[in-house]
């Protein structure tokens, strides 16, 4: 097999990537600007022996994903802010029942109905804290159609490996822009399958972790698992009056992600080797920021870019150690300060952190970021 070259937008790239990763079930509900993904999956999945179903709303869509995942399939839906809000209760169910699934979230400007056709990046916190209670998700953000393809495969792999809902946090710009996508030969693409139990049903404890993760017995394998959103023990049985079981369960669903943060971490550094000012960005803004860093470098300003490809779990220790040498961070994001709060928290006051917001409907132009770099540099 040789590598292939395609000219795809982010929506097609994420769909094709999902299929390569093994996704064979998609349930979704139309919403701008994410509908292109559902439309493309409706076209492609039946050709690949997969199932596409358009549900009656986003709540039904994610509930169907949970059912299909427990039916043994790799599953994905696509949505945008308002639909993602509707899904949140079942994001919690997926977290607590440790159900692998992927949500491709194409961000538009919010809150509420906001600007349906235009870009936003305001769902950073929603993708981490949207459901009630303590839990963790993994959130990945691509900056190009190429990364939409590559990273959604990683999203599936992490969902299956850690038994966790993974939010693939795209934005309107990335979903709609078309570029070259290089598809590596199949044998060079790593695809992870979920771990199945290898003990007898009598000995099997469906929520007992083995090396952080419990092997997953899906429907029809003969393990007769009980799965509930109630606080449950290793056996999966409800234990709704035991603070000890609650503590064990919450620690487990959080710690399996927290303690593996360094393995999940994925950051692009550009010109950081001698940087004095670091721009932090993700998604479409990562591209503007890179252009701004190039401008700054042409003017002999030592600026660099930290582009987050994985947003959650947040790479706290990374920023903490970066703050030993970088004293000035600028966070450029299309919201009123979400990643900025995290960077600020992570650097423990060792560096200044400034926000360069956009409020939705427009992307930072490189010149705006460059101006901010100059301003911060001259601010000493």
């Amino acid at each position, binding site marked *: 097999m040789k590598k292939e*070259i*395609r*000219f795809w*937008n982010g929506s097609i790239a994420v769909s094709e990537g999902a299929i390569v990763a093994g996704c064979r079930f998609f349930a979704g509900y139309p919403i701008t600007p994410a509908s292109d993904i559902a439309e493309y999956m409706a076209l492609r999945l039946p050709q690949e022996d997969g199932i596409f179903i358009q549900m009656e709303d986003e709540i039904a869509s994610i509930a169907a994903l949970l059912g299909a995942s427990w039916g043994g399939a790799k599953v994905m839906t696509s949505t945008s802010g308002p639909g993602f809000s509707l899904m949140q209760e079942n994001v919690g169910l997926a977290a607590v029942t440790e159900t692998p699934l992927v949500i491709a979230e194409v961000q538009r400007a919010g809150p509420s109905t906001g600007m*349906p*056709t235009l870009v936003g990046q305001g769902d950073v916190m929603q993708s981490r804290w949207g459901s009630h209670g303590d839990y963790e998700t993994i959130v990945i953000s691509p900056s190009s159609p190429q990364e939409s393809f590559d990273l959604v495969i990683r999203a599936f792999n992490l969902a299956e490996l850690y038994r966790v809902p993974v939010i693939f946090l795209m934005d309107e*710009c990335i979903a*709609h*822009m*078309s*570029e*070259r996508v290089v598809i590596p030969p199949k044998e060079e693409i790593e695809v992870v399958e979920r771990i199945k139990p290898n003990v007898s049903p009598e000995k099997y404890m469906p929520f007992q972790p083995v090396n952080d993760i419990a092997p997953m017995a899906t429907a029809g394998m003969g393990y007769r698992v009980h799965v509930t959103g109630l606080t449950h023990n290793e056996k999966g049985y409800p234990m709704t009056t035991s603070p000890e079981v609650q503590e064990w369960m919450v620690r487990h669903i959080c710690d399996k992600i927290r303690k593996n943060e360094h393995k999940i971490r994925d950051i692009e550094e550009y010109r950081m080797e001698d940087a004095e000012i670091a721009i932090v960005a993700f998604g*479409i803004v990562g*591209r*503007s920021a*890179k*252009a701004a860093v*190039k401008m700054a470098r042409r003017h002999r300003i030592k600026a660099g870019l930290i582009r987050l490809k994985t947003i959650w779990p947040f790479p706290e220790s990374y920023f903490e150690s970066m703050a030993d040498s970088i004293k000035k961070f600028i966070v450029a994001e299309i919201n009123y300060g979400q990643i900025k709060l995290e960077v600020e928290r992570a650097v423990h006051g060792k560096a200044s952190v400034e926000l360069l917001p956009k409020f939705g409907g427009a*992307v930072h*132009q*490189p010149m705006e970021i460059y101006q901010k770099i100059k301003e911060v540099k001259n601010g000493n």
Partner: protein
Amino acid sequence: MKTEIRFAGYGGQGIILMGNIAAKAAVLYDGKNAVYTPSYGPEARGGAASSNVIIADEEIDYPYVTSIDVLVAMSQLGYENNAPILKDNGLLIIDSDLVRLKNGAGKVAKIQATRIAEQLGKRIVANIVMLGFFTAVTEVISYGSMKKAVLESVPAKYKELNEKALEMGYKEGMKWQE
């Protein structure tokens, strides 16, 4: 070397497809870096439509057009809205039956693309006539690559018609070159 191109017209003219085909030709067949971004509003025909292509030898970071090297205008509004960000030495390409120029236009290449398409029997291929013209006039994308991208992007039963349309436009462009 970086070229920023905007195709502008109204919904229903195939403006979005023009950008897509041009960028696809550059990436898949000319082996260049290119990015295509549509700009679109709620589903509607008749409203303003534009699509954008940046073609470059180097890596393209910021994917949006900020100052235009080549403006292809297929409506009066498309011309008027975008002319202010056309570079001083930029090239304006118009369908001269659809766009009336104001004073002070710089370098202009004119074609009656829609009229040629009508002569071919299908007004809908005006965008492909224009793409042929664009190819000859700008020389940013090779004719062979553009032809491949066009044929790949149109329904099988219209391949011949579109090939003809592209060729007609291209010939007009060659005349302009002379």
